[in-house]
């Protein structure tokens, strides 16, 4: 059941990503380009997601001791606004602003016949690998 849920929620996520327009870097860049012909689409993507997630979290998840079919919540319990968080977010924003592609749309596009996505994925995985090595050094 645990694995069926993983596959099904992944499927819903991919369909949502495709419908949202975020799979097109031009839509993302037009949202980020506040000085140009601004396209608010991404605001509606995030708004739609939070419209479901915030009340769902407050009403269904917060009061529960554990998930339906797992032993515990795998949630990050960090509270501090530390340097890795802000520097990491800034580097992520730089990469996102350069191409208009982030991890969700990239994975969703892997069977869409766009070979640039595969190049992006390889570079992104290399970046994730480097970040894990850096974190090991910091700790």
């Amino acid at each position, binding site marked *: 059941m645990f694995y069926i849920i993983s596959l099904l929620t*992944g499927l819903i996520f991919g369909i949502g990503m495709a419908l949202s327009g975020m799979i097109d870097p031009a839509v993302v860049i037009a949202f980020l380009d506040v000085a140009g012909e601004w396209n608010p689409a991404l605001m509606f993507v995030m708004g739609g997601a939070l419209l479901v997630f915030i009340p769902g979290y407050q009403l269904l998840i917060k009061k529960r001791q554990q998930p339906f079919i797992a032993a515990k919540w795998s949630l990050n319990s960090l509270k501090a606004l530390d340097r890795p968080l802000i520097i990491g977010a*800034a580097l992520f924003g730089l990469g996102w602003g350069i191409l208009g592609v982030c991890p969700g749309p990239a994975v969703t596009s892997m069977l869409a016949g766009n070979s640039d996505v595969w190049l992006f994925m390889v570079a992104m995985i290399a970046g994730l690998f480097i970040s894990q090595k850096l974190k090991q050094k910091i700790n």
Partner: protein
Amino acid sequence: MEFAVPWSSLLGGILLGASALLLLLFNGKVAGISGIIGGLISPEKQDFLWRLLFLLGMMGGGWLAIQFLGITFPSDFSASPMVIIIAGLFVGLGSGLGNGCTSGHGICGIGRLSVRSIAATCTFMAVAAVTVFIRLHVM
């Protein structure tokens, strides 16, 4: 001023939020795509297969959207291989260091009103907007 609500983006966002909510409610896992991929690189016990299935589900969702919903994906990123690699490296490095990307911080984190995620999202949005501004209006 005429304004059309991007219904497809709103619906896509609602699906993203629903997927993230169900994955957390049932499996206790966060639908943060960079985090899910990061965990595949250095997997812990019993923690590999659900990640793979979620990502395969996403790819399948993208494929279904092309076949049955008439969604068109871009056939390339209209950027040089070097730009794609640099963007991918920054996206991977940044989301790894900062513990999340648009989905993990922007939906799941903000969705449970985490101060870290709100700070990270504001940071990467601002840096991405500045990057786009420099790229399109200064360079």
